[in-house]
């Protein structure tokens, strides 16, 4: 499966944020999306998630040579501030989600199994989500995406403000989830991107471009990325 973006454009009034995004993502890989503050990473995600209307271009999925539109259920969008319905307990949220997505492949196990996967303790499972900590909410959000098994997983700074243990658990989980899907991971933390991602792409003057690591070691590769981002600033 490939996720193809062609000539995607988005402006806010006269300010062109995404000028010409064209890129092909391949399944099974985690892409680290880097860019300076205000480069338009979140705008790109919002456009792909159809929370913002694009001004031009298109994006589609390609499966065995067949093109098809991206449907809402193809995309899982994980935000840096995890959003969960505060008035439900964790168990009720999962129950509701499984009711709605009964046909999904991932949604056919007993509820407690899912909690076990995320190491959410017995005591917490029947607590209202409004009483959950940031890290716990994050786990719930990831759990939903784990069950939904979207073809494209967009992650907007998902590991910032998590404690080291939860962050490590999340990293493991993302690695285990990457098969058969495209994961695009936006972050400001270069080391994290290098550690977790298979490819590094830069959002650069409103365009996406891949940074080729070829034979460079991590330190040199880092230097190359920083140089590329600086260049953007001087343009």
């Amino acid at each position, binding site marked *: 499966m490939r996720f193809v973006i062609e000539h995607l454009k988005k402006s806010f*009034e*006269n*300010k062109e944020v995404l000028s010409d995004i064209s890129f092909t993502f391949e399944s099974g890989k985690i892409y680290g999306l880097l860019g300076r503050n205000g480069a338009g990473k*979140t705008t790109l995600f*919002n456009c792909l*998630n*159809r*929370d*913002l209307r694009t001004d031009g271009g298109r994006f589609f999925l390609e499966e065995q040579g067949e093109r098809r539109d991206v*449907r*809402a*259920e*193809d*995309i*899982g*969008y994980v*935000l840096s501030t995890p*959003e*969960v*319905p*505060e*008035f*439900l307990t964790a168990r*009720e949220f999962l*129950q*509701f*989600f499984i*009711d*709605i*997505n009964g046909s999904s492949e991932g949604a056919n196990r007993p509820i407690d199994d899912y909690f076990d996967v995320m190491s959410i303790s017995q005591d917490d499972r*029947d607590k*209202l989500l*409004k009483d959950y900590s940031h890290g716990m909410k994050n786990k719930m959000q990831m759990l*939903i995406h784990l069950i*939904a098994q*979207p073809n494209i997983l967009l992650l907007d700074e998902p590991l910032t403000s998590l404690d080291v243990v939860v962050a490590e658990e999340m990293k493991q989980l993302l690695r285990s989830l990457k098969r058969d899907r495209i994961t695009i991971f936006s972050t400001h933390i270069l080391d994290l991107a290098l550690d977790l991602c298979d490819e590094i792409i830069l959002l650069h003057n409103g365009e996406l471009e891949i940074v080729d690591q070829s034979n460079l070691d991590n330190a040199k590769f880092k230097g190359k990325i920083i140089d590329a981002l600086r260049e953007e600033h001087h343009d």
Partner: protein
Amino acid sequence: MIKTFRTAFLLKNTYRVNTILYAIKQIPLLNRLLPQAIYRVYGLKIFANILAVLWELVSIFLGKALYFATLICGVGVLYETVPADEVFAHILLFLSVIGSFMNTAMFNPTRDKYYALILMRMDAREYVLTDYGYAMLKVVVGFFPLSALFGLGCGAPFWFCLLIPFAVVGLKLTAAACSLLDYKRTGNVRNENRLGKATWLVVGLLLAAAYGLPAVGITLPLLAVAVIFAAAILTGAVSIGLIWRFPDYGLMYRQLLSQMMHQLDQVNRHVRESSYKSISADTTIVSRRKGFEFLNELFIKRHRSILWKPAVRITYICLFLVLGVLLAFFLRPELKSVVNRVLMTFLPYFVFIMYMINRGTGFTRALFINCDHSLLTYSFYKRPEMVLKLFAIRLREIIKINLLPALTLGAGLAVLLYASGGTDNYWNYVILVVSVASMSVFFSVHYLTIYYLLQPYTVSTEVKSGTYQLVLSATYLVCFFLMELRMPIFVFGILCILFCVLYCIVACLLIYRFAPKTFRLRR
């Protein structure tokens, strides 16, 4: 000091001009015509500046004119047994005392003070003295013509009218000086927007003295009020020295403004937290349903305190009022004909009443903050069939909640109509009940529809849709002006029912056509 005043005034003006430009930018359609860099356009800036200056001038006189016209003279004409000039002086005195500590200008933490003192680090003493001096000057200038106009109108002598502006300022100065002394002594800074229970009690007593005493024929003699006013001018003059010499404005304002900025930054968080608080922690609440019915049932049950409870409370109030009127019929049968006449033509009035008791925006706000705000980030929730399914369920629920008080009120009105002498046309009873119910259904549909079509909330739960605000204001205005309309039950009732049916059909068509696209998070 003149330089400080000039800088502070310009700062305040810039802030006002930008607020006006921002407001203009929020107007639908107009915002597309305006350039992106609106804050840079010279012509628009001048226009906004003119508006700001006009507003400054209007604010000097308009508020005070309304104050005299309503709170003093407006209420004053109701007391027929006491002389008009004495009522005027009496009410004015007590309200001025209340104003001296509730409307101080000095202890009101406003944004412009925050910008000047905290962000721009202006000299606190100079800033406060010039700002306060200007505020007091505005009081004198504003009160001067209006106290003469209304005072003479009520028959008060001219010399008394001349005293008023200075007395009002004198009281304010005295109260400010007392608060400064209190701060010096205890270190507690007063905030006129956050009064303690004791202060509210004093306000209550003063209000009772202002409006209650004339009702039983007691007023202070005009001369006594004049003596108190003269004393206030004297204490005010003494207070000027104290206010002038007070050394700790910097410290005091940092304290006052830190409280306030804390509030400003957290306004949204407060809204959110109070929304979260409305979620019941009752662990016995469960649901045996599936899917969206499950979600909805839990939502309604866990938000009983803001949905069903107020509806039930209003129902009881309606019942109580109906029974009260029935009792009044029993005690004073002559009331019947008046009530009957009123009921036969006052149906349009009930549009406004239904508007007031409807749980529309409260419901949609809770829906957004506690439910949709988070779930809209999940793609399954945005699938068109899901959006429409949930809309239908929610519409059913909110109609049910609003219908309880509406049916009670409608039935109560029908009973009152019957008990007050009845009507020749029996259809009037039916139409009364059905039209009040249909008004309720209309409001339920209306609020949910505009919520789904305009989805006005941003990710940070602020309302950011000019169109939504306009629709809400228009709804209010229409309901408000309908109060003026007098029409027979039969005609207005039928029109009302027809309109509601038509509106519901159109709204549902629009929802099915557009909601899957419009029901999104605003970013």
